[in-house]
């Protein structure tokens, strides 16, 4: 790497430090509402903790990780020093300042509104301003990724953009457009109320704007994991990427389809018409296409690796895979969790099936499995893979790394499978306590204990992660050159449409206008849709 080494390290360290604190809060939440502990005497403490856990895990960890990984990709894949290093540090500073501002406000009990904001609840303005700073910091990253790619194209006219950078910039553009919804919500609807300029808020419109961000943000979290699937996994296990073009198709499909589908978070809300809910549900189904393409391509790449290692026959290549390789372990765990989580997600996105599990623990189980499991385990794998470049250290101890990945996988399954089960039985989410002495609930009590134990395993795993990363020491020798996976068909010509973004960004914006234009315009123009705000945190 050229200039960005310390920059990337700073991003990763703040991300993982926040992650470690937030996971402790998550485990505390599980513990206090399990039968192992009496009811939490101050329910507000519970919601304060949920808000902090969600804000760090959903905004701070993935944003900093995507930014840090993005800067690293820009240097490693484009093989040029990062342009705009000072701006990048300024963006990092904004993210850190915003995180601290939001965290202090939450800790003071002035912002227990959960990370999804939930108007008409209104928190202290410092919380929202903190979040805005985090987002603005990340927009600097978006601009820098675009500028670096443009500079590279000038130097390398006619050359295909490396797949890792193509995915990285896709993620950046996706985030830029995605974050606009929440930005409009906070700046135009929430902050005027929070600052005391207005005393009513259009809660329905606010939630529609938030749904604009709420679903696509998941694909922004997911991008680094998908980039790793395509460009790191095949190399790390000694294989070849089956198809470079398929990776590009998957990335652009995420760009087009992940954005205009958020109304499936509003299935139980009255303010959006049933027709739009159906259209959003149908388009949500479309995002399973790039996921299935990816699973196919990566499994095919694994097969190449298995056959290169001498595996024969229909299943012989599976046995021949390097099962003691930590990246092999990570991608296996990730796919297992992606499979379960994805199957659950298809229930969430169906307008009718969703009714059975809406706002139950099923949903909590779903997003922990798919984000905390399938995606975050790839964050770990990426950090392990890239750490020798950042620290100039030898490869990390494989035994500890594999233990950490195993603990994460087992912990996440033990945490989230019981949640899915009781969700089907109707256990509501966002409860500070359950009355296990009631005969209707008593049979479900063990599931909460099980989830608490799963959470404990996750805490151990998180501590181990930070321990492994912190123990790395640089040695004098320069690390081996970092490479991305090679394609199985290196001479393949990439169509121009899969080497540029214009068409796909235009389709993304067009589809957003078609799917969101009318509901937003209607709610914005209707009179008397505002309700009195409910300030949170008053003594």
């Amino acid at each position, binding site marked *: 790497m050229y200039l960005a080494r310390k920059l990337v390290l700073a991003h990763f360290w703040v991300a993982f430090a926040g992650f470690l604190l937030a996971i402790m809060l998550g485990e505390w939440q599980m513990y206090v509402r399990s039968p192992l502990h009496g*009811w*939490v*005497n*101050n*329910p*507000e*403490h519970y919601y304060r903790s949920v808000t902090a856990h969600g804000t760090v895990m959903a905004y701070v960890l993935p944003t900093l990780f995507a930014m840090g990984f993005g800067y690293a990709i820009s240097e490693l894949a484009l093989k040029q020093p990062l342009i705009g290093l000072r701006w990048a540090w300024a963006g990092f500073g904004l993210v850190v300042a915003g995180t601290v501002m939001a965290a202090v406000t939450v800790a003071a009990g002035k912002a227990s509104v959960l990370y999804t904001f939930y108007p008409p609840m*209104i928190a202290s303005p410092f919380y929202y301003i903190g979040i805005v700073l985090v987002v603005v910091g990340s927009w600097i990253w978006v601009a820098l990724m675009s500028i670096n790619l443009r500079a590279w194209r000038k130097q390398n006219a006619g050359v295909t953009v490396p797949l890792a950078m193509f995915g990285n910039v896709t993620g950046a553009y996706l985030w830029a457009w995605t974050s606009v919804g929440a930005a409009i919500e906070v700046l135009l609807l929430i902050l005027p*109320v929070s600052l*005391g300029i207005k*005393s*009513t808020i259009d809660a329905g419109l606010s939630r529609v704007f938030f749904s604009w961000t709420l679903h696509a943000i998941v694909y922004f979290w997911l991008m680094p994991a998908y980039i790793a699937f395509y460009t790191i996994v095949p190399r790390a296990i000694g294989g070849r990427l089956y198809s470079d073009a398929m990776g590009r198709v998957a990335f652009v499909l995420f760009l*087009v389809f992940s954005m205009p589908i958020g109304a499936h978070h509003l299935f139980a809300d009255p*303010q*959006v*018409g*049933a*027709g*739009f*809910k*159906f*259209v959003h549900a*149908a*388009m949500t189904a*479309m995002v399973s296409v790039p996921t299935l393409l990816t699973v196919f391509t990566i499994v095919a790449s694994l097969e190449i690796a298995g056959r290169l290692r001498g595996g024969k026959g229909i299943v012989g290549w599976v046995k021949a895979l390097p099962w003691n390789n930590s990246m092999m372990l990570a991608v296996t765990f990730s796919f297992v969790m992606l499979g379960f989580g994805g199957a659950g997600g298809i229930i969430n996105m169906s307008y009718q099936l969703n009714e059975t599990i809406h706002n139950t623990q099923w949903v909590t189980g779903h997003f922990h499995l798919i984000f905390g499991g399938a995606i975050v385990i790839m964050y770990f794998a990426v950090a392990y893979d890239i750490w020798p470049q950042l620290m100039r250290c030898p490869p990390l101890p494989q035994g500890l790394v594999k233990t950490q990945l195993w603990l994460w996988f087992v912990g996440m399954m033990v945490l989230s499978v019981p949640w899915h089960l009781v969700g089907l039985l109707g256990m509501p989410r966002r*409860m*500070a*306590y*359950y*009355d296990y002495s*009631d005969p*209707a*609930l008593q049979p479900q009590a063990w599931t909460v204990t099980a989830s608490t134990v799963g959470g404990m395993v996750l805490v151990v795993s998180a501590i181990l992660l930070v321990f492994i990363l912190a123990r790395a020491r640089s040695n004098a020798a320069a690390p081996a050159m970092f490479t991305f996976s090679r394609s199985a068909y290196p001479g393949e010509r990439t*169509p*121009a*449409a*899969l*080497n*540029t973004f*214009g*068409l796909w960004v235009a*389709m993304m914006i067009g*589809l957003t206008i*078609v799917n969101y234009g*009318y*509901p937003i315009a*209607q709610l914005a123009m*209707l009179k008397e849709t505002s309700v*009195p*705000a*409910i*300030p*949170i*945190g*008053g*003594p």
Partner: protein
Amino acid sequence: MRDDSPYSWSNPWVRWSIVALATLTVVSFLIGFVLLPSVQRDYRADGLWATICRAAGVPAKWIDDGSLSMEPRQMSTEVILLPSMIETASKDAVGRGATIAVQQCSMCHGAQGVSETNAPNLSGQYPEVVIKQLEDYKRGHRTSSFMQALAGNLSDRDITDIAAYYNSLPKARTAPARYDDESAPPLVRVGDPMRNIAPCIACHGGIDHKLGAPWLEGMPREYLLAQLASLRSGTRHNDSHAQMRNMVRRMSEKEIEQVADFYARREAAREGR
């Protein structure tokens, strides 16, 4: 190569991507706005255009044959609680409010807003609470022969000024009130989720305050018992969403007494002295 430009219609990638997306969109819209609503009687009642409008969520009267007309019900309150009601008032308002309060309220509610009778304390009461109750008395949504007669003569400004005055006084506190320790009754701290009873502290101050919910600490026990009883029977019905009526109906006599004792501990302490 012209055909390979990512911005040219002659590039098959561009052409097919746009055609495929447009087809998918049109088909989804046809299913969502025409086909699915057509199997619902209420959606298709007024023709195709009305069906589409209904699926889009356009506000409309759906069935207008009079069968759904609702009996006009008695409103519980006409006051809309706004966060602006809790903004700090000017000194003029406080002074003016003090003048009216001393003349008209102090006989029962005490000169400093701390009652020597079984009338509620007003010292430090949240302003929107005083405004709402006076407005409700004035319009007959809450009944009391004294209070309706007094409130009927107050202008809107009088009411906000009285509220500002009482808000400027210190809140009555019971001896060290620790809401999150185990000595407080469970209904105060954690409610009872299986009976849909929210904890008192979720709204009535101490932990969190929701607009319109009064500060209860130090209130006379008899007043609290009387109010809980009248909310339970429905003779008092000015809680806008029946939130208190629904809480109290599910509480036992003993629980009602426990809660009233907890909030009225000031009186108990004094008697013991």
